[in-house]
């Protein structure tokens, strides 16, 4: 106990935020603007078809502006006073349960705000072009706005209930957007699957909230974290694990990863915004936000790192086997989030890198997804990379931006991925002990695989001979789509250095997650190994996919390839372990209810009816038998009276 208190005392987070002023006091506008956009677009019907997308984009941009203003205001404040509370309204109150709808503007949340509104706005702009032929573009923008609002609530809430509302709100937006083309059964199914799998995670989050309330009597971050050290170790670990379950659902970590690949059924901007840049990283946010809990529970932290590493490998392996460009990217997303979760589980030094990698990833992965969208745009919405090839000449801008993102993700020195990923690997080794070594090496291997599958994707799409279908005539996308690509590429290149150099981001986040003990080493003993593995990965891909021609149909692979292609049998496992037994259970229950429960009721009725049918036969119609019954009855009455005497 004492050590933990000491830890907290040493550099504990700011627990008593002040009331917000200035722009920050209208931080609710951040949420209100996109929410209003969504409401207007949804309620107005077809009337706003013409300019609905512009309104949606404007709302998102507006939020971005507010976010930027709030950010600069924060920079002007002293480091200890950067956590500001915005009181909105009392939400729930009954007995001791009091939940207020308040917003917390602090460095952590503002980082997310900027990422969400910034990348979000770019994707809004991109979508104007991407969705220009869709009759339901207005609805699409409404959902996007809804997503932005919910995501902002998620990161801005000052308590777990607010977070939970945003949490499910983004789930809803994700559901709506994955299933945007709901006439496609696969899209509808994918949407439903995403929601339901997320609900499994939400189960964890819900129970965690209950435990917190039962333990601390409050759900605000301030109260929970402030009293965390007084709770028993078991409780804290339980909360940590339950929160992790929630994070797994939202961030597609093992074992709740299966929905993310299917989620690629949604329009590509959605994949970029929700399923790459922002929503799926909410789990990382949750863990980092709850660091006060995790810091008290080594067991919970350990499990977080295990989940992270397992997922980063699993995602990478899946990414190697996919021919669908979006699914390959989705596998990569899983994998990269695995890195972030790993980092978040590593504790104090990891938080910064988790968030930094998250932001960097937001840029490069969004950029690549949008690039993929641009490619699909050119290829008549085909996603099969085996039918791509040689696109670098016809789509130069897309190629260039995608290439920069590619370099960033494989950790090419100097680009943003290099800064952040190296930091995570370093932190893993820094953890020390056997576990640190294992985590570190696995993360290293993951980096190598990343290089391999990303190169594979790059080569199959942009290099080599064209393997296009006959009726496909690729062309570069319009400006409204390429400009966001360019902006995102800039972020991919420079983001990492900007954040990591001079511990800039670490200092910025310090009021929330605490000051790291030492400043980050730019060059670590592992830098070289990482680089070497990267080269190996790229080389392998070069040999396989650039030197040799790529067949237009996927060759039958060995069991390992099949294993990867089938998403490591995740779906099969779900199906055989959950779905089928579930279906049987359902059928059994329905049968039981109809025959058993209802059967008892109907049986009782039938029994009474049957008794009636038998008893009425006693009424034979013969007057003598009536007389007999009277006679017997009289005897019984006499007997009864005498019996009482005895």
């Amino acid at each position, binding site marked *: 106990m004492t050590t933990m208190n000491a830890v907290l005392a040493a550099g504990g987070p700011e627990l008593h935020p002040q009331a917000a002023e200035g722009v920050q006091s209208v931080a609710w506008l951040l949420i209100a603007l996109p929410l209003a956009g969504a409401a207007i677009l949804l309620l107005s019907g077809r009337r706003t078809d013409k300019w609905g997308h512009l309104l949606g984009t404007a709302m998102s941009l507006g939020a971005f502006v507010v976010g930027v203003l709030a950010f600069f205001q924060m920079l002007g404040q002293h480091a200890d006073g950067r956590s500001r509370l915005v009181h909105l309204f009392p939400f729930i109150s009954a007995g001791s349960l009091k939940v207020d709808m308040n917003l917390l503007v602090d460095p952590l949340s503002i980082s997310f705000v900027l990422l969400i509104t910034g990348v979000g706005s770019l994707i809004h702009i991109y979508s104007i072009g991407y969705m220009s032929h869709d009759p339901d573009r207005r609805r699409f923008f409404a959902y996007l706005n809804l997503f932005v609002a919910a995501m902002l609530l998620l990161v801005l809430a000052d308590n777990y209930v607010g977070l939970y509302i945003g949490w499910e709100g983004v789930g809803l937006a994700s559901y709506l957007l994955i299933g945007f083309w709901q006439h496609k059964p696969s899209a509808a199914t994918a949407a439903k699957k995403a929601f339901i799998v997320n609900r499994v995670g939400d189960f964890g989050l819900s129970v965690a909230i209950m435990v917190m309330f039962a333990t601390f009597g409050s759900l605000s971050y301030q109260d929970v974290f402030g009293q965390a050290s007084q709770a028993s170790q078991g409780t804290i670990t339980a909360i940590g694990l339950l929160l992790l379950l929630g994070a797994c659902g939202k961030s597609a970590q093992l074992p709740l990863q299966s929905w993310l690949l299917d989620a690629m059924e949604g329009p590509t901007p959605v994949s970029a915004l929700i399923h790459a840049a922002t929503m799926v990283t909410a789990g990382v946010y949750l863990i980092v936000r709850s660091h006060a809990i995790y810091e008290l529970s080594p067991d919970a932290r350990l499990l977080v790192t295990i989940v992270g590493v397992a997922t980063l490998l699993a995602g990478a392996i899946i990414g190697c086997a996919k021919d669908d460009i979006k699914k390959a990217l989705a596998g990569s997303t899983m994998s990269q989030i695995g890195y972030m979760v790993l980092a978040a589980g590593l504790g104090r030094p990891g938080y910064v890198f988790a968030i930094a990698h998250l932001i960097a990833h937001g840029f490069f992965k969004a950029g690549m997804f949008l690039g993929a969208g641009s490619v699909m745009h050119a290829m008549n919405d085909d996603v099969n990379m085996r039918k791509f090839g040689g696109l670098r000449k016809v789509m130069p801008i897309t190629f260039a931006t995608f290439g920069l993102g590619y370099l960033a993700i494989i950790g090419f020195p100097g680009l943003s991925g290099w800064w952040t990923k190296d930091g995570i690997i370093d932190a893993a080794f820094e953890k020390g002990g056997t576990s640190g070594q294992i985590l570190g090496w696995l993360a290293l291997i993951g980096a190598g695989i990343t290089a391999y599958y990303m190169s594979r994707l790059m080569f199959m799409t942009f290099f080599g001979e064209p393997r296009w279908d006959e009726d496909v005539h690729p062309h570069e996308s319009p400006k409204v789509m390429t400009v966001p690509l360019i902006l995102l590429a800039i972020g991919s290149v420079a983001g990492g250095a900007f954040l990591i150099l001079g511990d800039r981001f670490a200092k910025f986040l310090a009021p929330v997650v605490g000051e790291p003990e030492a400043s980050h080493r730019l060059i670590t003993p592992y830098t070289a190994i990482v680089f070497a593995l990267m080269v190996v990965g790229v080389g392998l891909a070069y040999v396989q996919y650039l030197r040799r021609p790529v067949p237009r149909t996927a060759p039958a692979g060995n069991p390992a390839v099949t294993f990867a292609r089938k998403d490591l049998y995740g779906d099969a496992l779900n199906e055989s372990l959950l779905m089928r037994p579930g279906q049987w259970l359902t059928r059994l229950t329905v049968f039981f209810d109809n025959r058993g429960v209802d059967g008892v009721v109907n049986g009782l*009725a039938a029994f*009474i*009816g049957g*008794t*009636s*049918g038998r*008893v*009425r036969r006693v*009424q034979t*119609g013969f*007057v003598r*038998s*009536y*007389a007999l*019954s*009277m006679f*017997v*009855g*009289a005897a*019984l*009455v*006499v007997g*009864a*009276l*005498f019996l*009482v*005497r005895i």
Partner: protein
Amino acid sequence: MSTVYMAAGDIPTPHIEYGRLAPVLIVLGAACVGVLVEALAPRAQRYGLQVLVSVVGLVAAFAWTIALGIGDQPHHVAAMGAVGVDGPTLFIQGTILVLALMSMLLIAERTNGDSPFTAQASTVPGSPEERESLVAGLVQTEIYPLVLFAVGGMLIFPAANDLLTMFVALEVMSLPLYLLCGLARRRRLLSQEAAVKYFLLGAFSSAFFLYGTALLYGFAGSVRLSDIAAAISKQGGTEPLLLAGVALLSVGLLFKMGAAPFQAWKPDVYQGAPTALTALMASCTLVAAVGGVLRVFYVGLETLRWDWRPMMWAVAILTMLVGAIVAITQTDVKRMLAYSSIAHGGFLLTGVIATNKAGLSSTLFYLAAYGFTTVGAFAVITMVRDAGGEAGHLSRWAGLGKRQPLVAGTFAFFLLAFAGIPLTSGFTGKFAVFQAAMAGGAMPLVIVGVVSSAIAAFFYVRVIVLMFFSEPLADGPSVAFSPTTAAAVAVGAFVTLVLGVIPGPALHLAQSAANQLFVR
């Protein structure tokens, strides 16, 4: 021996309080006038005269009863102690008179000149004579004095303060009913069969009643209820004579109210008898019979209640269950209502068993409430007719609610009252007896009552389903409208509603009637 026989001079001149007995006397007198009318008046005028005499007689008797009730605290014995004139008795008598008046409306009903009673009872069904009598437009008018005699007997039965008077009243009440049962105009074979069955079993049961009386006489040396009670408290109740006597007496009484296992006659007789008469039996006879049960058990055997209670518990439970369960599978409306009447007898017994003021008053209220509802229900049955007379079979009632919403709706209302749905008199009554029973500690009885109410609800509901939720038959029955029947239905429905919504006054009446219990 000589000491036994008293000198002639010792026998006091009987003193009869004519004023207190007037209601009974008026009814019996009206019956006698009816006989004279039958003998003297020309055939064409008999119907009108008979109806007039009956109605006037009943109304006058009722008026007098009310006068007696509000005059002074009625708590007297009359006719040398043979008849008690007290609160409960007057309440019962008043109820009987009103119900009889309503039944009379049904009995006197003539649609297209058709009476529900046969023109000439002596003719063989289906014979040329019968057809002739029908063609001649003959009308049975003897029924009116017969009904009045029966009503007279019913009035005396619950008032009788000694067992002999009670026996005579029983016979006066029963004999005309036996005859009347056999006088249906349609389905005469059924009617006659009902009469035979009723008669034989009735006679059989009165033999039991009488033997029980004899044994009690042997025990107490008197047939006066008060003397029996005194003898019981003096000698203690160990005598086998006493117990056997009580048992046989109970058989006779329970038979009249149709309690299980003495219920067998009820369905057959109710079904076979002319419906107007069934209405009379189901209401007035039941009231009178329960009145008699009340008097015997509250006055004569009250001190013995720890002995007869278990037996009566068993009877009550059996009655409720048999009535409710067997009714479920009935297919004839009247027969179903007969079983329903059996079940209601069971509910009434739960009130009787309470043997306290609450029990008495609640039973009285229940009687009145049930009587009105049941007359109304049978009145509706008389209206629903096929080519061959009343549409007895339930399947014929299908879809009636769509073709005759008012009639079917009223019938449904009566059925809901039978089922004890709140805001009907049936609920108030049931609540009253259950409350009394519960206060008397008869929790299990209440539970059985509740369960059998639930079972019973099934067949009431079934009829409603049939009437309202089934498609109408193509050749479904029509509704024969006659003002007198309609009046009976209206009164029944009105009272059922009023006693359900504002039962206060009626309950108050029953309570003040029961305030002093029976006179000894």
